[in-house]
């Protein structure tokens, strides 16, 4: 399992709750004009945090981007 994941925002689904901005304020910001979440820096997170974010987004707008492989492969966990 990769230990990092890239995220994306489906603007059509976003309802601007702001859960993403609350949990990952460096990456997401709800735009005051459009009322939807925008990505303001590289949306790459450790898998656990990425999955928690996807789970906690009420509208399903925050998604794992399956088309983009994130950072170079890291050695598998041995523990």
């Amino acid at each position, binding site marked *: 399992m990769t230990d990092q994941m890239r995220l994306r925002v489906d603007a*059509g*689904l976003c*309802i*601007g*709750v*702001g*859960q993403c*901005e*609350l949990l990952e304020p460096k990456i997401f910001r*709800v735009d*005051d004009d*459009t*009322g*939807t979440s925008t990505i303001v820096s590289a949306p790459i997170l450790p898998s656990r945090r990425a999955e928690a974010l996807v*789970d*906690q987004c*009420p*509208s*399903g707008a925050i998604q794992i981007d399956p088309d983009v492989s994130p950072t170079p492969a890291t050695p598998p966990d041995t523990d």
Partner: protein
Amino acid sequence: MTSPATSPDIVSPTIYLQGIPHREFSEIMAHPGLLWHPYQDGGFWVVSRHADTKTVSKQPKLFSSAVGHTNLWDLEADALEARRSIIDTDAPDHTRLRRLVSKAFTPRNINLWENVTREIACELLDDFRHAGGGDWVSMVAAPLPIRVILSVLGVPVSDADYLVELSNYLVEGTTDQPSLAADAFGNTTDLHLLPFGSPASHALFEYGERLGAKRKSDPKDDVVTQLVMAEEDGNRLSAAEYRNLFHVLVFAGNETTRTAIAHGAMAFSEFPDQWKRLESDGAISAPAVEELLRWATPVLHMRRTATDDTELSGTPVARGDKVVMWYPAANRDPAVYDHPFDFDVRRETNLHFSFGGGGPHFCLGAFLARMEIRILLEEMLSRKLALRQVGAADRVASNFIHGILSVEMEVM
């Protein structure tokens, strides 16, 4: 096909005069699959487990909010049309309505109201302390959230008492015994077309329309002005949508937080060791606020309607079946919570469903409610204001709102 096993009664409103029927919910949760609850001419599936509640909430296409309404009973077509609001719509209508108001309620924008909230909380708590206690609901739990939500929306705070009075009548509309005459507040609309079947909804609609007209001619930098401007645009918000959205914002923006604050005070009175924990921590942590919310569960249920044949926890659910999520059950699901009947302000990982099960209908005011509760507790803590309940709370006979009409608290 054999008929499904039947649920014990969890809908008779008078049950709730004694509090939430936890014994029945535990029984329902322990039963494999879902139980069927007879209701009027039909019935509904009882969704009680945490996992099932989440499954239903997160699949808004499969479990619709718009079909038949979110009540236990179906609304007639004309009532559905007249009462259509952000609560009982699906995408794309829901998305459009939600985006019109979402930005006012993001965590960042809610933080801007912290000072206003603190000022109101300080005033109410000082008055309460000087009075040596009294009815916690009318003195603190009700006035705090109404004043804050009116400030956030741009509604004159001087009208708070009137709008609380209307809210009280709306809550009464969820019971078996509403007291208002059909023509109260000059109402001429057929009651089935009004939210909660209450003439107080007519009064709230009228109030919102009057305020909207004022903002149209004299715009301000507030939510009401943004909404009437969206209405002016033509295709962004209809007149009926404006009415209903205003109604939801005012009602849900005060009643639910009021209920949470009432139950919170009762919980700290029942579990004084938990208040002592906060005192020794010297601060209000996020887990304390979340536990208060879990404990209170202000809204008792929401209904969805299956748009296709499916299954839940192994029970087949047919297209058109009603499924009703009972949040107090999910919030005490032993599969998720250790000692679910303990009120524990240090409880970790508390993904409660007091704001809904985590789908697109996730409570719009969640961050506002959390902020209000945190600030109120902080100001109680700084005043060393420990409360002790005197006598029983006067509860609302409703299977929808976990309401407290009044509860006497003395200052320790």
